[in-house]
């Protein structure tokens, strides 16, 4: 990670936090005049109004089904405007939010799982920034990807933190790199929250005076350099897990746009160029190539989702990017036994000349990737 990041993702997230939306849930029955009645059942989600003026809106939810449910108001890209969890069978809940004009969806999730049962909601009034349906689709799919990465990471992180807590050095070392992959694939989104990254992914030299060092790299140092797990390290393991749980819960609310996806892809390559290629990121475990691969995969995911849009505007650019992604992946494959595995050569064993070759390949990709945002938006 870097100490300060003025990325589009961050900026957008900040703006969203200030202006868009507060999803507060109230306990009142809330059957006010303007309220939208939402009747949630196990197989349906009935909404009384599908068109509303922009501004303050209120949903009066009633769970008439047999399962615990949750109700969301979502942007077209699946970003959460407001939500209410844990609405038990036979109970009611109220959701309020400030909403700008645009297209939204209401989702009921019986059993609190899955995509939910969706209903359209049109908010009219002052104009909102318009985005094409294909852009919304790209963002929605990326949002799903980011969430899935976090969801898949938590059990892996648990394996790692449990091993540390139990003082099992060998098991912890084995689980370490794998526990980071999902994070590395989606790092710019995680970093957009600002507070999570410094807790889980900071390196010792990134600390401010007086800041307590927590997270993966603190444990990495204990495992590979100090070669022992003391009481403090054992106590820090569940803290890492808890912080990652926080990430998993919040990642769906990140403000994601086609531009932030494109810039996020470039930022992932920048992470490689400044941290992995130098061997700084994993200076004790030397598992840099695993992170490297994760960063590239995350960048490639953003790119693949944006490609249908970008290729219409700049076909030469996407042709170049296809080629350069393939070249970098081929080069990375040289450092692992088989393509399915994430067992990579220890970075200690990668020669200076080979590191330069990797660095050149990263630059070869990152330079045209820096033009993706423009190709998506023009």
């Amino acid at each position, binding site marked *: 990670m870097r100490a300060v990041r003025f990325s589009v993702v961050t900026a957008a997230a900040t703006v969203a936090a200030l202006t868009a939306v507060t999803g507060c849930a109230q306990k009142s029955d809330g059957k006010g005049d303007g309220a939208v009645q939402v009747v949630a059942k196990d197989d349906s989600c009935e909404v009384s109004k599908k068109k509303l003026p922009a501004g303050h809106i209120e949903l009066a939810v009633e769970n008439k089904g047999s399962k615990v449910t949750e109700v969301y108001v979502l942007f077209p890209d699946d970003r959460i405007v407001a939500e209410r969890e844990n609405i038990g069978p036979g109970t009611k809940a109220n959701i309020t939010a400030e909403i700008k004009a645009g297209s939204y969806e209401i989702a009921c999730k019986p059993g609190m799982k899955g995509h939910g049962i969706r209903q359209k909601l049109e908010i009219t009034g002052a104009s909102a920034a318009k985005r094409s349906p294909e852009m919304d689709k790209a963002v929605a799919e990326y949002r799903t990807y980011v969430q899935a990465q976090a969801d898949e990471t938590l059990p892996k992180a648990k394996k790692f933190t449990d091993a540390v807590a139990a003082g099992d050095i060998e098991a912890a070392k084995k689980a370490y790199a794998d526990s980071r992959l999902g994070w590395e694939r989606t790092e710019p989104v995680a970093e957009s929250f600002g507070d999570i990254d410094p807790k889980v992914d900071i390196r010792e030299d990134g600390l401010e005076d007086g800041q307590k060092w927590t997270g993966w790299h603190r444990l990495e140092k204990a495992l590979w350099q100090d070669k022992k797990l003391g009481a403090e390290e054992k106590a820090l393991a569940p803290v890492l897990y808890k912080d990652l749980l926080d990430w998993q819960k919040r990642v769906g609310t990140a403000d994601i746009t086609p531009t932030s996806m494109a810039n996020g892809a470039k930022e992932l390559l920048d992470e490689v160029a400044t941290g992995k290629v130098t061997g700084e990121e994993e200076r004790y475990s030397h598992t840099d190539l695993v992170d490297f691969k994760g960063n590239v995969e995350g960048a490639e995911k953003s790119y693949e989702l944006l490609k249908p849009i970008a290729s219409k505007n*700049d076909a*030469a650019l996407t042709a*170049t990017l296809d080629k350069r992604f393939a070249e970098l992946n081929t080069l990375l494959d040289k450092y692992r036994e088989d393509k399915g595995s994430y067992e990579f050569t220890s970075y200690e064993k990668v020669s200076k000349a080979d590191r330069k070759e990797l660095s050149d390949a990263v*630059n*070869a990709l990152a*330079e*045209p990737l*820096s033009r993706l945002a*423009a190709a998506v938006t023009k």
Partner: protein
Amino acid sequence: MSDQTQAAETTAGTAGPAPSRRALLGWGGAGLALGAVAAGGAVAAVRPGSDAVPAADSGAAVPFHGAHQAGIATAVQDRLHFAAFDVTTKDRAELVALLKEWTRAAERMTAGHAVGDGAYGGLAEAPPDDTGEALGLKPSRLTLTIGFGPSLFAKGRFGLEDKRPEALVDLPKFPGDNLDAARSGGDLCVQACADDPQVAVHAIRNLARIGMGRTAIRWSQLGFGKTSSTTPDAQTPRNMFGFKDGTRNISGTDTAALDKHVWVGGKDDAGWMTGGSYLVARRIRMHIETWDRTSLQEQEDVFGRDKGEGAAVGKSKEHDEPFLKAMLPTAHVRLAHPDSNDGATILRRGYSFTDGTDGLGRLDAGLFFIAYQRDVRKAFIPLQRRLAAHDALNEYIQHVGSAHFAVPPGVRDKDDWWGRALFS
């Protein structure tokens, strides 16, 4: 608009909006109309049709187009950024496209213009075409000179093995060499010379950026304080040892000497090189601290000159003809003089360098030696053999980097490009 900028506009012959870096890809032979100033690349740019201000005095633009590449016989500028590149693409067409893009960018930068759509004012979402640090600076007599290394001609790479000139030999190992592979060789080189270091660095940075994915910088060297002059009527500059060296350098205006010793002739072995030259670059580390505690007598004996005036042993003025036999047999001037080498003559264009200090607290400094000649087998190699074997200076220097490049002839006009004769 200042006079200098006007001069640059006229010289480059560009008008209207610049092509973007991306758009350059497809250019090929189309090109723009050109009111070219076809100078020999030798002397100063002069603003056509008005009070002639030599570029050397004004920081104006040196013409890019001409029979020979600028940056060889051109009056030596104050600063250098020299970069050697590896070609990372295997695709000949990609390499050719790059050379065309580089040529167009070089035309613009040597004229004092930004690359592509410039450094600002473009799409907000995209990084600017130009990196921007030369905005507001004069052209500063920037010259960009390209060369092709022996490795570019290797079999199975770009189909150039039959075009490798016989003169483009792999340099032999000289006694005392301690060459670092990471500071040696390269498929391509670009020599950027300018009176302003920022202008030279800007040029290499932009070319490197344009090249990413097709080329990668292998090594580069910054230089300052030119150590030789192609305007011999001016004073010969001093090297880091405090001595004048290279007094007998070829003048940039001495057409006969240039034709004889520097430019490749039509009857030399590779036709595509006619009008070009061969460049040898050597990074020569100087042991500054031990030199500084050497007695004045020894310092002067080592060079064969006096330190103050630069006159040869027994003479009073720098340009007085030296009497070689008055010097020690191991004196640098005596060994390097054409009279000791069957008339072998090179055009020197070296710069001093200081890359801070090394880990031992020693100044990491020396001479970045650059020599141009018609054929290294008749010039640099015999000369360096003699020096490496006998030069008293060897106690105080070591060659740590080395490269040899074929420097093609000049870009004639807006339709021409670096290396066209080689690749066509």
